[in-house]
């Protein structure tokens, strides 16, 4: 089938049909149907609804049917239904051109990538706004800008939104977009599942925000029992959110692994695979294996809250440790789900801007796989002072500290790639270099937390909060922006403004460090996490942090201005390969044609052949799209 066989008739604009609007309407309808059913279930065991004035069964059923309605409105049910009726299988939905495909179910991996970027961006900004409000409250030691309960909800919303949505921050937008292009494929292995992961994530984020209609939730992102069971119906939003995020991550991981394993073009052996794909495989395997544990824990919590089981209530035979164990068996791999894509982006971009091959390819791969493996063996370091398994603490101390060995591989490979290179300080490169600085501080502070005697003081304090912001914000969000500045010209065909990009970088980098470095001191000086009030002698440092955080927030607005200005107003066309990369995706025209490759390419080398005398290109690239020849 050839792409230009027939001039396609322009698709008619339809307001009624399978699209986002229908999805939203059916989502609201679904909620009220579920709510109605929930209110008509009569059973003696749920008589407490009358006392509490809250009906968790109705809320859960409402959320469940809301998601079903949303997906049905987007058209996810029509294909299974068509297959049931005997229609032939198909891989494609809405892959023609046009803006409308961005507002519905589309199986083009490039559309899904851009959908992810915008969708995650929106929730990232909402989560960031919550952080601003938290820092506003902490301007005064005994301040009451927000009542205590609402403050806890803000803390929970910030943490949950960031941990849940940002888990897919690199894999969602960038792996979906570039992995098929890097490996010479025309699509992902499961295109409909790919679209489903995105829309599930959007449903999750929206439902989490509705927690404020149900009284919020007091537990932070960990959702510890039995506080979880004790909370208002707002807790149900948290549970549904993480459940949907869990399903979304599980399917995303599955799809990534299947794609990279089965759909590589001829000649793309494992040792020629771009390092980014190795990072994606590592992350995806964590997603695939860790999410089910989270989903199981949340199902138990749901049953405790509705059907009156007692998995987590000690006085009725349950255990609070059970929830903590399950949560962190998921939670620690989750931390590396957030960190590993950062490693992958840094190692992928450094060779391009240092103009050298990736140094120690095998060591870099071993490093990421080693982190993946070890991240399963460390979870009880979150429970060092909890009184669980006191005699296992030396083991968890050792396993946690061992993780710095494979992490060190990544550092070594990155650093040696820079060594003797010809480093170009482009905006994406600046973000990658900042990663080294941030992750170094995050890693070294992690040693204090991994070491039990030291952890006794730092555990649960602002120190640990500063630590994971250095690793997650410093490690993931900085590389998220590196990836945006790097791949946006390919994804949109337009350049981002370089000067605004540099202003964005420097304000963000300085404000980030000015925000989080003092938090180590505040933690060491005895301020626990998630408090609404603190001793007055810590006010100066807290005010410093708050002001820095506001500057950090403002730096995001610089980025937003750049993004809107460059892509909507200035619209400077990007050359085909502005960075001089040897990776396959940059050999394609910008933006990439719908079917990527007319002929599947054949690989003869890895994409890191910088400085080779013969100037080999990594792949024979028969790019046949008519418009895309020039650069």
């Amino acid at each position, binding site marked *: 089938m050839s792409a230009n066989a027939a001039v396609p008739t322009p698709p008619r604009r339809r307001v009624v049909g399978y699209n986002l609007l229908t999805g939203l309407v059916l989502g609201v309808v679904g909620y009220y149907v579920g709510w109605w059913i929930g209110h008509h279930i009569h059973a003696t065991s749920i008589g*407490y*609804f*009358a*006392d*509490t*004035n*809250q009906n968790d069964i109705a809320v859960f059923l409402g959320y469940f049917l809301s998601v079903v309605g949303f997906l049905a409105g987007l058209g996810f049910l029509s294909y299974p239904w068509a297959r049931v009726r005997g229609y032939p299988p198909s891989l494609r939905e809405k892959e023609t051109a046009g803006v409308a495909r961005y507002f519905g179910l589309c199986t083009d991996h490039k559309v899904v990538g851009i959908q992810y970027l915008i969708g995650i961006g929106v929730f990232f900004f909402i989560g960031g*706004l919550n952080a601003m*409000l938290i820092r506003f409250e902490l301007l005064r030691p*005994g301040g*009451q*800008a*927000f*009542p*205590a*309960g*609402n*403050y806890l909800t*803000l803390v929970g919303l910030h943490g949950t939104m960031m941990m849940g949505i940002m888990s897919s921050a690199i894999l969602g937008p960038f792996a979906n977009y570039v992995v098929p292009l890097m490996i010479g494929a025309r699509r992902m292995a499961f295109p409909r599942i790919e679209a489903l992961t995105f829309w599930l994530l959007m449903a999750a984020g929206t439902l989490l925000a509705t927690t*404020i209609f149900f*009284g919020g939730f*007091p537990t932070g992102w960990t959702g510890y029992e*039995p506080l979880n*069971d*004790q*909370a*208002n119906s707002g807790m149900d939003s948290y549970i549904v959110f993480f459940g949907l995020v869990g399903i979304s991550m599980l399917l995303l991981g599955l799809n990534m692994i299947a794609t990279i394993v089965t759909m590589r073009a001829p000649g793309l052996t494992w040792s020629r695979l771009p390092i980014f794909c190795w990072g994606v495989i590592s992350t995806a395997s964590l997603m695939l294996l860790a999410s089910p544990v989270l989903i199981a824990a949340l199902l138990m919590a749901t049953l405790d809250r509705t059907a009156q089981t007692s998995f987590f*209530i000690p006085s009725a035979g349950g255990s609070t440790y059970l929830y903590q164990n399950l949560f962190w068996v998921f939670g620690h791999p989750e931390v590396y789900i957030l960190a590993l894509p950062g490693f992958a982006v840094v190692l992928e971009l450094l060779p391009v801007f240092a103009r050298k091959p990736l140094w120690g390819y095998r060591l870099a791969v071993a490093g990421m796989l080693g982190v993946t493996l070890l991240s399963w063996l460390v979870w009880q370091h979150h429970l060092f002072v909890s009184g669980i398994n006191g005699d296992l603490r030396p083991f968890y101390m050792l396993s946690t500290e061992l993780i710095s060995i494979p992490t060190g591989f990544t550092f070594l490979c990155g650093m040696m790639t820079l060594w003797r290179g010809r480093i170009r300080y482009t905006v994406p490169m600046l973000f990658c270099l900042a990663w080294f600085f941030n992750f170094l501080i995050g890693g070294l502070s992690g040693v204090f937390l991994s070491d039990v005697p030291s952890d006794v003081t730092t555990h649960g304090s602002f120190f640990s909060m500063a630590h994971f912001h250095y690793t997650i914000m410093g490690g993931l969000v900085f590389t998220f922006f590196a990836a945006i500045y790097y791949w946006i010209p390919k994804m949109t065909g337009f350049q981002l403004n370089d000067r605004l990009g540099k202003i964005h970088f420097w304000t963000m980098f300085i404000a980030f460090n000015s925000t989080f470095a003092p938090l180590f001191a505040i933690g060491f000086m005895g301020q626990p996490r998630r408090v609404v*009030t603190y001793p007055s002698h810590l006010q100066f440092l807290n005010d410093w942090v708050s002001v820095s955080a506001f500057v950090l927030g403002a730096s995001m607005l610089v980025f937003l201005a750049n993004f*809107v200005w460059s892509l*909507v*107003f200035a619209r400077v066309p990007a050359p085909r390969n502005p960075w001089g990369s040897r990776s396959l995706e940059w050999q394609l025209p910008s933006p990439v044609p719908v079917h990527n490759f007319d002929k599947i390419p054949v690989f003869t080398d890895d994409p890191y052949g910088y400085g080779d005398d013969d100037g080999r290109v990594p792949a024979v690239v028969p790019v046949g799209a008519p418009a895309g020849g020039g650069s």
Partner: protein
Amino acid sequence: MGSRGWKAICVAGGVLVVATAIGFYIGGWATSGPASFTPASQSSRSVNLTIQTVAAIGPKLSPNPSWVSYLIRDNSNQWRRTTVWKLPAHALVHVTLYNFDGASGLRNPFLGAPQGLVGSERVDGKVLTAMPPDQPSHTFAVPELGILVPIAPVADDAKNPCDVAPCQLSSDHRTITFTFRTGKPGHYRWQCFVPCAAGWLYGFGGPMQSLGYMDGFVNVV
């Protein structure tokens, strides 16, 4: 700038308007809480507060009609559901509390003895030294000031229980009087220690974790 540019401006403007609206909504929600109440003080040295505790707040005063709650009598003798009180520093606060609720019992029996008061706590005029753990209906406690006041219950077989808040003194009730000193300026939280939130795990959810019901602030200025 062609029609595309104008379209983009319209979209950007629309996004801005929606974002501002959402921002205001979140900001408004985040700052929402019970209004502060300042008693008309007789002098800066001494203040009188009149409080009642009810088993169910009713639909008139709250969107959660079945929740237990504190009410305070404002300066025009109306009962209001607010738990944030502004009081002068280093003042004596004389509290008269009418309880219309039955017994719930304490989870920690230690909290059945009054602490940190000026003089003693009196229940229907009689001095109270300690209450058996199955008795208390609520407590009024300001841990930072060391204040703890267990509140005696209305009997289970009361003939004339109060149905709808605010309750009138013609219903069966207990009268608790006590005096405490506010101390130096600051925001002091107060709470109830009795698991009185029916239907919640350990009796400690809902109204026990919401400002405006069983929790509040004593703002000493």
